[in-house]
C-alpha cells in the first residue's frame, strides 16, 4: 500500500474506523479530504471493520478522484479486485483501471463501491452498505445527502430500536434515557444502523437549497453529530494558507512543511511591462484594474477589460513558464468571454471555470477575476464567503486577483429589509488582508488597460 498521512489525517482515520455513527470531517482547502476518504475505506476493508463500503461524490470528476486515489494506495491490480465504479458510464475516466458495472450482482460481490449521489437512485432499494464515506462538495440539496444514508439503514437494528422506543412509549412513567428522545433525522438514521462519514467544508460549500435556506449539507451534519477538523494544508504555501485561514476563520489552518516555502518558479524573466505584477516571491498579487461591468443573461455579469487582462496575463505566463494555470470567476458570462479571448490568443488549453466548477480542482497559478465594478459598490453574488474562499484557495504557487481594489475594499453585498442598512461584503476583508498582510496590491500596467 502506498499512503502517507499527516498526524491529523491519521487521527481522523482512526477515529472514524473505530466509531459507528454519522459524523462530519471538515477539511479546509488542500487538507486531503479525498485521501482521507479513500484511506478510510481501505482501512475498514483491510481490518474487516466493514464488509462493504460505499464512497459517494456529487460529481463524476470527484468520484474519479476517489478512484484514482484508491488505485494509488492499493495499486491497480488490487483496486481492480476490490473496487467497482457504478453510475453513469459517460462520466467515467476510461484510464482508471477500476471496473464499471450497474449489475446488482456485481455490486454485491465487490467490497468498495464508488458512485455519484445522483446515480444512487438506480441501486436496488434493498441494497445495504456497512459504511459510507460521502464527499459533500457540490451537494446543493439535502436529498442528495439523504440518498446515500438510506443505503446504510439496517432493518434488524431499526426493528430493535423500534422495540426499545415503543417500550418507552408504552411506559411513559419510566424515566427516558436521552438516546431514546429522537427528535432529529440524523439521530434516527444513525440509530437505524447507518454508519457514515461526511467530508466537506462549510466554508466552501453552497447552501443546500438556493431558495430560502442558507446552510450547507456539511453544516447540517456538523450541527447534529460529532465532528473533527483537519488543519494541515498540503496545497497552499505559507502566505496563502495564512490568508485563507484568516479570511475564512479556519482557526489554525497551516501549510504542511513540504509546501510552506513553495514559490513560483519561472523559466524566463517576465517582459518589462509585466514585471510589476509577476513577482515570483509574492504569493498573492491583486491587480487593481478599473473595467466596466455589464449585465448579461438572467443573473450573470461580465467585465470586458478584466477578461482581456486575465487572458493577457495567462498568455504571458504561458510564454515564461510551463506551470498549470487556472482562471476562475464567479460568473458564467465572464468565463465565456475569457475563454473566447484565450482561444483568440491560441490558448484553448487553459481551464477557465466558475467558482462552482473550481471546487475540488487546483493549479500552480490561479487568476481570479472579480468582475463587479459599479458606482454603488454593490458586489452582489461575487462577494460570498464560499465563492471567494474557493477561488483564493486553488493555487499551489501564485494567486492573481483582478478587480477594482477600492470598490472591493468598500463593497457591500445586500440591503437589509428596512432598506437603509447595507451588509458589508466578505470581499472587504479579503482586500484588506491582501493589502495589509498577505500580498501586494499593484496598479494594472498600461498593457492590461488597453
Amino acid at each position, binding site marked *: 500500500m502506498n499512503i502517507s498521512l499527516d498526524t491529523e489525517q491519521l487521527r481522523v482515520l482512526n477515529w472514524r474506523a473505530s466509531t459507528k455513527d454519522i459524523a462530519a470531517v471538515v477539511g479546509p482547502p488542500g487538507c486531503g479530504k479525498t485521501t482521507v476518504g479513500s484511506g478510510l475505506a481501505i482501512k475498514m476493508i483491510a481490518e474487516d471493520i466493514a464488509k462493504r463500503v460505499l464512497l459517494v461524490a456529487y460529481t463524476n470528476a470527484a468520484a474519479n478522484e476517489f478512484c484514482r486515489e484508491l488505485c494509488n494506495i492499493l495499486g491497480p491490480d488490487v483496486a481492480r479486485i476490490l473496487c467497482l465504479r457504478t453510475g453513469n458510464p459517460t462520466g467515467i475516466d476510461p484510464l482508471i483501471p477500476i471496473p464499471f458495472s450497474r449489475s446488482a450482482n456485481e455490486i454485491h460481490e465487490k467490497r468498495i463501491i464508488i458512485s455519484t449521489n445522483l446515480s444512487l437512485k438506480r441501486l436496488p432499494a434493498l441494497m445495504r452498505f456497512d459504511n459510507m464515506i460521502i464527499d459533500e462538495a457540490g451537494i446543493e440539496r439535502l436529498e442528495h445527502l439523504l440518498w446515500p444514508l438510506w443505503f446504510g439503514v439496517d432493518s434488524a437494528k431499526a426493528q430493535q430500536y423500534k422495540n426499545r422506543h415503543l417500550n418507552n412509549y408504552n411506559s411513559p412513567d419510566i424515566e427516558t434515557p436521552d438516546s431514546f428522545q429522537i427528535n432529529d433525522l440524523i439521530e434516527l438514521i444513525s440509530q437505524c444502523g447507518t454508519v457514515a462519514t461526511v467530508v466537506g467544508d462549510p466554508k466552501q460549500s453552497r447552501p443546500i437549497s438556493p431558495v430560502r435556506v442558507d446552510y450547507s449539507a456539511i453544516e447540517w451534519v456538523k450541527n447534529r453529530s460529532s465532528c473533527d477538523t483537519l488543519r494541515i494544508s498540503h496545497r497552499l504555501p505559507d502566505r496563502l494558507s495564512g490568508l485563507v485561514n484568516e479570511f475564512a476563520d479556519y482557526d489554525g489552518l497551516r501549510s504542511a512543511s513540504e509546501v510552506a516555502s513553495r514559490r513560483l518558479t519561472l523559466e524566463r524573466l517576465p517582459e518589462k511591462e509585466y514585471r510589476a505584477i509577476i513577482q515570483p516571491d509574492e504569493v498573492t498579487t491583486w491587480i487593481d484594474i478599473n473595467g466596466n461591468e455589464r449585465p448579461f443573461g438572467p443573473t450573470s455579469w461580465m467585465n470586458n477589460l478584466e477578461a482581456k487582462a486575465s487572458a493577457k496575463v495567462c498568455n504571458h505566463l504561458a510564454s515564461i513558464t510551463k506551470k498549470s494555470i487556472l482562471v476562475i470567476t464567479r460568473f458564467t458570462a465572464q468565463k*465565456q468571454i475569457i475563454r473566447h479571448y484565450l482561444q483568440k490568443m491560441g490558448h484553448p488549453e487553459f481551464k477557465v471555470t466558475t467558482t462552482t466548477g473550481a471546487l475540488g480542482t487546483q493549479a500552480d497559478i490561479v487568476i481570479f477575476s472579480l468582475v463587479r465594478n459599479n458606482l454603488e459598490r454593490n458586489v452582489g453574488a461575487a462577494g460570498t464567503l464560499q465563492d471567494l474562499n474557493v477561488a483564493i484557495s486553488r493555487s499551489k504557487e501564485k494567486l492573481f486577483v483582478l478587480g477594482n481594489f477600492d470598490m472591493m475594499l468598500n463593497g457591500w453585498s445586500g440591503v437589509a429589509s428596512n432598506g437603509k442598512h447595507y451588509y458589508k461584503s466578505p470581499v472587504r476583508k479579503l482586500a484588506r488582508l491582501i493589502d495589509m498582510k498577505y500580498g501586494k496590491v499593484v496598479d494594472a500596467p498600461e498593457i492590461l488597460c488597453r
Partner: protein
Amino acid sequence: MSNLIVRDLYKTMTHTKTHLVQSKEIATTCVCPYLFKMSYPFGVVGGERDYLVANTVHDVISLASTTTILDNWQQGKTDTDFENIAKSIDTDSEGIIEESIANAKEKARMEGKTPVLGTFDYEVQDRFHGLMLGLAKRVMKKYERPKRAVTEITITNVKQVQEGRLDAIFEFEDGKYGMIDWKTNNINKASGSGIDRWQLITNLLLANYRYTGDENNWDKCLFGSVVYYEGAYFPRLPLSEDWIDKIKNDRKFAHEILCGERPHAQKPAFCPVCDRNGESSFDCRFYREDSKRASQGDLPENYANIRRLLVKRRYLVLDERAETHKHKFVIDTIIDRLGETTALQELERTGIVHCGYKIHSVNANSITLVKTFDNEDEMTPTLLEPRKIVRIIGIEKDIPLLACVNEKGFVKEVQDTKLVVDLDGNTIAQCARIQLFDLPIIIIPDEINLTRRVLEPMHRFHRLAADIMLPSDMFLDGNQNEYLS
C-alpha cells in the same frame, strides 16, 4: 427595454408564480387528488415496471407518423381493407422497426437493464400492428389524409400554467387538426374511462392553444382520440362542459399544491388505486391518515419534528422545480409586451435566447446547428455551454412560440458558429431532423425536471420514521412495517 428590466423581471417573478402543471399530473388529479399528492409533494415513486416494449413502439410510431402512416392513409375503406392498410404500414415501416429495436436493445445494454427477452421483437411488431389496425379502423375510416403530422411536441401554455407532451397531431387541408394519444403500454381494449380520457382532453386544451392561441377555442379541433390495440376511443365533440370544468378545477388544485397552498382534497367515491388495493394504496392511506393526525396535533412530538422537517424540505424542492420554469414565464411576458419579433431581438441581446440557428446535420443522437453572425468581429458571450439543457424551437408561422415544434437536449459542444446538441436517443434526433430542418431555430434555456426522484428519499425516511416512532395501532394499515422488513 434594457437588460436590467429583463433581469428585474426574473427577480420579481417569485417562485410561487412560475409553477407549470404537466398534463399527466392534471389527468392524475382528475382520477383522485390524493394520487397527485402521492407524487407531489410526497415523492412516492411507482414500481420499477419495464416499459421497454412500450417505449420502443412509441419510437416506431413517432417516426412512422410523419412517413409511412401518412403515405398509407386511406379514408372510407370497408372492414376487410383495414387489415391490409395496417399490413402495408407494417411493411413500409420495417426499416424503422428494425432500427428502433436495435436502438432499444443497445440502450438497455448500456443502462445495465435486465436482458431483453426473446419475444421482444415480436411484441414490438405485434403491438405496432395492433395500433395501426386501431388507427385504420377508427380514425382513417372517418378522416381524409392529413397534409402533415407533428409528433412528440411539448406545448407550454404559460398563462394557464400548463405544459404537456403530445404524441401526435395530424394537420388537415382546411387548417383543422386531429390529435392522437397512442396507448403503447398494453393491449387492453379501448376505454373511455379513467386517466386516458382525462389526459386526452387535457392535451386537447394545449392543442387548441397551439392552433388558435386560446385553449377554449375549439374551431380548429377536428378530433381527439386515444388509439388502443385494435381500437380507439373518441370523445364526442363538443366536449361536455363538466369535463372541461373538472380539468380546469383540478389543474388549479394541482397548481395550488405545487405552490405550497393547502386546497381541500377529497377522495372520490371510487379510486382505481386505493379501492382496488393497487400499487401505492398503502402509501396513500398512510399519508391521508398522517396529514389528518398532524393537523389535529395527534402525533408524538419526536415524530412530528421529523415529519415537519421532511414536509418542509419537500416544498423547498418544489420551489426549485418552479425556478426551472422561470425562463418560459419571462419569455412569454416579454413577448406579450413587445410582440414576438422585437421580444426575441431583445431577449437575444440580453443573452436569454439564442436566435439565427439552422439545423446543419444529424448524426446518431446528436444534432448540429450553425449560426450566421451579422458581424463576426462583435463578440457576444453565450451562456450556452456543455451539459446545459436547452429547448430547440422551430419557429412556425402564426403559432405561439412555446407551442411551436421543439425538442429538448443537452449541449455537447459550442464553437463560435456551431452548436452540437445531444438528444435523448436516435429516434428523437430523427424526428427533430424531420420537423425542424427547414425552420429558423431559436434556442432557449430549459431544465430537466427530476423532482419525483429527488423527493423519494424524503418519502422513504418519512415512512421509516413512522414505522419506528408510531405505535402499531396508530394507523389502520397492515403494511406499516414495510420499511423495517
